[in-house]
């Protein structure tokens, strides 16, 4: 009796799986589309949260600290002072606002009513540094540490920042992370559940076939491999379908939205990477679900 090797055996079973898929084309397509929809929902959430988080991090830029500079310290030159601020941990950028600029800004605010300060001849406004903190320091603690260091500087007359904004923002950040985790866990669970239940039902629909295979002496592996291959192929098709749905949705929205909202539709991945990610997760899910279903069905 001629026996074939493992590789040619798998090819043989793959051919069988393909034949069976052709025979049940409609059913396989529906399963693949179910996988696709589930994946699309999952990735939709993923992208919404990635984009939301990046948007939220940009809002973090609004966390800024103003240090007023003693007039006496200005004589030593701005650059030295700026450097001493720039190298404080947590400081991202330092922007110098001279006494003249401060006055101009005040005038701009009073536009139309400049007469109110017309009589002022010596500029009473102090120069200042407008300091932005790096993302890792936008929470209440981080800002406090930067503020503390700045206050200790000999040239600093006063340090101002919006404590309210900092606290709101860091609470918001924590909330977004928590919400993303909660919704993400839920969506992932739902996706895995729906996909595995769908594949379980397709295995169940073919229970008689599996029974016959076992009775004629098929090993568990022989029975599982076609389901595995089918699951992988359906997962792949589902992944491509999900990509299609997401891309189509993105194009529908892309042309019709204000430019400054572009970030909401930005893709965290290139197109080929995205295809790979979707196809790979589809295949992984299909494979896992088919292994679990068949293993449970075969009862070991």
């Amino acid at each position: 009796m001629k026996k074939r090797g493992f590789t040619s055996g798998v090819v043989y079973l793959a051919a069988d799986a393909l034949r069976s898929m052709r025979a049940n084309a409609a059913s396989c397509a529906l399963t693949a589309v179910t996988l696709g929809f589930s994946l699309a929902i999952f990735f939709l959430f993923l992208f919404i949260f990635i984009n939301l988080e990046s948007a939220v991090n940009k809002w973090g830029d609004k966390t800024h600290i103003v240090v007023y500079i003693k007039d006496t310290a200005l004589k030593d030159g701005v650059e030295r002072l700026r450097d001493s601020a720039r190298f404080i941990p947590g400081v991202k950028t330092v922007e110098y606002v001279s006494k003249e600029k401060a006055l101009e800004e005040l005038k701009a605010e009073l536009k139309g009513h400049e007469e109110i300060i017309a009589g002022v001849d010596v500029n009473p406004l102090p120069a200042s540094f407008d300091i932005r903190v790096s993302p890792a320091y936008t929470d209440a603690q981080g800002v406090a540490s930067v503020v503390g260091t700045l206050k200790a500087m000999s040239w600093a007359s006063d340090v101002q920042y919006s404590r309210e904004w900092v606290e709101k923002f860091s609470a918001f950040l924590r909330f977004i992370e928590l919400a993303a985790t909660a919704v993400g866990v839920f969506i992932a669970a739902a996706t895995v559940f729906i996909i595995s239940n769908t594949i379980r039902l397709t295995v169940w629909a073919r229970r008689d076939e599996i029974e016959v295979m076992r009775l004629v002496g098929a090993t568990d592996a022989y029975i599982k491999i076609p389901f595995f291959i089918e699951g992988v192929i359906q997962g792949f098709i589902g992944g491509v379908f999900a990509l299609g749905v997401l891309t189509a949705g993105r194009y529908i929205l892309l042309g019709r939205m204000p430019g400054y909202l572009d970030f909401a539709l930005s893709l965290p991945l290139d197109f080929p990477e995205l295809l790979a990610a979707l196809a790979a997760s589809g295949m992984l899910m299909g494979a896992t679900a088919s292994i679990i279903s068949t293993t449970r069905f075969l009862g070991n």
Partner: protein
Amino acid sequence: MIRMFHVSKNYEGGSFALSDVTLKIAKGEFVFITGSSGAGKTTLLKIMFGSEAPSEGQIIIDGRNYFKIPRAEIPYLRRRIGFVFQDFKLLPQGTVFENVALSLKVMGVGSIEVKRRVQKVLSYVKLSHRANFRAAVLSGGEAQRVAIARALVKDPAIILADEPTGNLDPHLAVETIELFKEVNGRGTTVVVATHDSTLIARYAKRAIGLESGRVVA
């Protein structure tokens, strides 16, 4: 070849299919199992095949004790046994060829060899002209012959045939038993469960009689 010691089979609810069956079937023997409907013939064959476990007792097939065979080895044991199921157990969506080929394919036999052997055995059961029909559309007798072909194609050491002529006309029934006699002549142990008394009378082989789960003759 096949030995049973005090084998019983009970089901929940107190009903039982076999009680205290002890028997011995030698290698190369041809044995009929007889008995009326519900006597336990199918149960006896299924226990020999390992698809039902006895509630009590020991079975030794081919020198191996059934209770000691690990789950993973059952497929390999089944490959040595050709079973003709009373309800055929064909894949309805598969063709006649595919159904017969399946029992070789699961063993890893190459496609050319499969084709040669399946065609040969289909000609034995006179179904060459139905090779590409789906099993679902076959007539009762045709399906039964496919089941017989699937059992024969792997040249098994043992053939267990459960009512293999129930859907065949007398002429085909005789031909089928002749086929079993032929493989039996080449050394295969054959066990046929049947209620067809004409066949048993005609062949004057050893017959084990069952009545309500007990061996009576």
